């Protein structure tokens, strides 16, 4: 199941949820994660409920995760410095660490990569800056993502891919995502795997438990 890991419908963006779901279905997605929208099915597309935690202090993040854990399917936390990221990656309930490209290069190293791999918490590849930024800012983002792909070869943490679309014009098809992700050395197989990673994150495979 191919999922766009975050979209922002009206009023955050200029497109309604129904329209985004319609366009995403035409582009080839099976589901989308809509931020701050309840879970539903629209036009055959499964809309998952996502929440973005933007707190800067870890205790605030813990409180926010506890508060939102039951009401949303996917919990994203915005990345911070290295110690913040390490602490976030050890929290239960967090699914995805996002906006890693907006932080300093030292904020995600081999130690955090290993924790993410052990805890199976995903890192988000946000396509928005690749499409909308130009020049040095886009180059910096590409370098960041290239570094993530390199770290992932040693520590296989999950990746998700999001268009972060505020408009239907920001959505990109899986084929376009394969082209864009090739810019930083991600193979088509890795892109396919990243597009279907949210399923595994939401309902992870656990050992069988004896109940009686």
């Amino acid at each position, binding site marked *: 199941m191919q999922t766009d890991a975050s979209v922002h419908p009206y009023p955050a963006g200029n497109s309604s949820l129904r329209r985004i779901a319609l366009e995403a279905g035409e582009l080839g997605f099976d589901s989308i994660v809509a931020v701050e929208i309840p879970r539903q099915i629209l036009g055959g597309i499964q809309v998952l409920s996502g929440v973005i935690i933007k707190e800067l202090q870890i205790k605030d993040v813990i409180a926010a995760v506890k508060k939102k854990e039951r009401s949303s399917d996917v919990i994203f936390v915005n990345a911070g410095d290295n110690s913040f990221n390490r602490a976030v990656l050890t929290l239960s309930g967090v699914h995805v660490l996002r906006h890693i490209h907006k932080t300093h290069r030292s904020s995600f190293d081999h130690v955090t990569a290993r924790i993410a791999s052990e805890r199976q918490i995903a890192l988000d590849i946000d396509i928005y800056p690749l499409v909308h930024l130009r020049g040095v800012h886009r180059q910096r983002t590409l370098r960041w993502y290239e570094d993530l792909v390199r770290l992932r070869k040693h520590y296989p943490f999950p990746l998700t891919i999001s268009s972060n679309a505020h408009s*239907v014009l920001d959505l990109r098809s899986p084929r*376009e995502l394969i082209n864009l992700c090739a810019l930083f050395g991600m193979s088509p197989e890795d892109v396919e795997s990243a597009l279907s990673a949210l399923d595994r994150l939401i309902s992870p495979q656990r050992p069988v438990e004896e109940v009686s």
Partner: protein
Amino acid sequence: MSPRPPSIRDKRRYLLVQIFPRCLRPDQKDLYLAVQDAVTSLWGDAASARIQMAVVAGTYGYGIIRCLRGTESQLATAISTVTTISGQLACIRSCALSGTIAALQRRGIPPPACLPSPLDAEAAFDGRTFAIQCRDGEKVDLIEKGFKTQELLFLTEQEIEVI
């Protein structure tokens, strides 16, 4: 200048693209400038020269873009980074690739009658009045009727109330 014999001509590929929003109908020059800007910005001057991008046709929200054979994936990647055409929000999606323009025209571009056209209708949404820019099946593109802002909204038929 006499044309080169086929054996020493450049081999070309033609990409059929669709332009969104559907109400936007840029001319060939605007489309060329938008794509050229994206190609140069993403791949640099040297690679852009190798791609040899040219817009060979543009009509009714569709365009045919030419490139050198072997550079089509670079062109397609650059096309997906287009965000504006002549200052207006837009995106371009590649639909089909072929070795001849005729083959693309045969299989890709729908006849003009099937395409959405601008309408003189108004709709209310969220307590505001909008002009309906374009209808395409269930999809409706609206533009706000106002002096200060002209917000563009992408909705569906079920969400608006036609006045």
